[in-house]
């Protein structure tokens, strides 16, 4: 129960962050990515700001045996730099650069009622399903 409340609170903070930071606006994101054009560096502050509490939490985590409301940490353990990592990141970068939406802002943009956000999120989930049915098919 408490884990669900925490998930809700963290979701609220994350969603507010998408709107307040202006990551929700694809035109802003594309202007940030357009480093050789009229570059708009504002969004660098989003990652900069996010890394402060996030890094502090990972430092605190080293001193904890278990999270406060769960039995164990479920964090990625894979250390291999392989084709799926690089190929997947490259595909993601291509799609991000084409439209200006990554998953968090795309979900947040649904709340504005913009039809483009609904098309994008439907395609995004379809892309995830396609992965599940192809490369992730094994047992």
């Amino acid at each position, binding site marked *: 129960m408490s*884990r*669900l409340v925490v*998930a*809700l609170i*963290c*979701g*609220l*903070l*994350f969603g*507010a*962050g998408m*709107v*307040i930071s*202006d*990551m929700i606006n*694809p*035109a*802003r994101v*594309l*202007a940030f990515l357009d480093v*050789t*054009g009229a570059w*708009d560096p504002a969004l660098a*502050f*989003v990652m900069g700001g*996010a*890394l*402060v*509490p*996030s890094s*502090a*939490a990972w430092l605190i985590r080293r001193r904890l045996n278990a*999270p*406060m409301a769960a039995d164990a940490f479920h964090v990625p353990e894979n250390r291999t730099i392989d084709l799926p990592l*690089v*190929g*997947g*990141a490259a*595909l993601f*970068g*291509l*799609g*991000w*650069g084409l*439209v*200006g939406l990554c*998953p968090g802002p795309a*979900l*947040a943009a*649904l*709340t*504005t009622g913009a039809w*483009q956000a609904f*098309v994008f999120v439907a*395609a*995004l*989930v379809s*892309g995830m399903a396609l992965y*599940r049915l192809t*490369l992730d098919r094994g047992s």
Partner: protein
Amino acid sequence: MSPEPISFVWPLAGGLLVGLSAAIYLLVNGRVTGISGLTANATGLSRGGPRILSLTFIGGLLGGAVLSAALVRTPEVQITSNLWLLIAGGLIVGFGTRWGSGCTSGHGVCGLARLSRRSMVATAVFMVVAAVTVFVIRHILGWGL
């Protein structure tokens, strides 16, 4: 199409909120806040990820966007991509983030914070590819996107 300039205070404040979300979710629930992973869990497209928990997070994300849009700042969502570009972009982002195990939040906000080499590589790759994509579209093809 360039948006109006924005004070750095907005991205900084929004970034701090995203980081706070990641910090609390890690320390209390013991999990990373990667939105592509949470989306896959919520839609049943991951291998056994926690569905209800992830659905709750995403419900909160939508609620937080609505509340902050009503109370703090009204967002503009300026999208010039046509229908086919939206579909292609969404498919590629969905497939790519699953294959590459993360997106801007999982590899960026969480992975960089814990100095994961995998996340450093992934973040460098998607940032560079995204910037090159925008360069090709705007400055070589000359599309006004």
